[in-house]
């Protein structure tokens, strides 16, 4: 179970391979569910040229740890990984990686969905978008 907050761009698929190689559960899992969220170049009908992601250092990690522990209690999973960007980013940059490993697919599907939905609805992160002529805080998390 690992939580990482990155203030520089990261490559989610490489991070996944590296983590899986170090995690020590080779041969134990039959299913890996992976979600990667990336920055769009549009939102609510406007072109978005850049974005800043703010977080609450300490509480963000604490909350992600809490939901990771809840997922491990609710489903029969082997491990989970959450990586989330903060700071300045550009369209197409990866924002978030959620990965869950389990023996069978149902647990990893359900647990990864749970982690992502809980992250989006309650983890303290805030997006501020740069448009062509102004910047604005995102107020709807769809």
């Amino acid at each position, binding site marked *: 179970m690992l939580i990482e907050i990155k203030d520089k761009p990261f490559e989610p698929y490489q991070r996944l391979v590296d983590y899986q190689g170090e995690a020590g559960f080779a041969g134990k899992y039959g299913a890996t569910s992976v979600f990667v*969220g990336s920055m769009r170049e549009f939102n609510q009908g406007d072109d978005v040229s850049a974005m800043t*992601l*703010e*977080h*609450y250092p*300490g*509480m963000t990690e*604490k*909350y992600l740890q809490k939901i990771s522990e809840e997922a491990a209690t609710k489903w029969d999973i082997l491990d989970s990984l959450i990586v*989330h960007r903060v700071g300045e980013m550009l369209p197409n940059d990866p*924002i*978030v990686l959620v990965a869950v490993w389990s023996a069978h697919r149902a647990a990893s599907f359900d647990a990864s969905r749970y982690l*992502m939905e809980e*992250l*989006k*609805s*309650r*983890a*303290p*992160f*805030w*997006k*501020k978008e740069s448009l062509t002529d102004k910047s604005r*805080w*995102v*107020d*709807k*998390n769809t």
Partner: protein
Amino acid sequence: MIGLRVEIRNQENSLFMSDAIINIKFFASLREQVGLAEAQISEAGVSTVMDAWNSATDNREMPENTLMAVNMDYVEASHPVKAGDEVAFFPPVTGG
């Protein structure tokens, strides 16, 4: 002996000072609206999160959708606060 007494008093005083403080944090759009990232308030007269908001913002009206945390756990406005706590206020989250 006199020097020692003075030193002990200073330690007690500084301990008292830090004990009587509640640390406040504001994030994102709420930080910009309030015009403060952090504040320190006296615990005097402050018993709930709502009291802490009123003290730190000079009784500004709290936006309806404001989220609150004490020591990095979500709470409601009626949650008790005490000296040494970290109380945070922020808008709905938009990560992921």
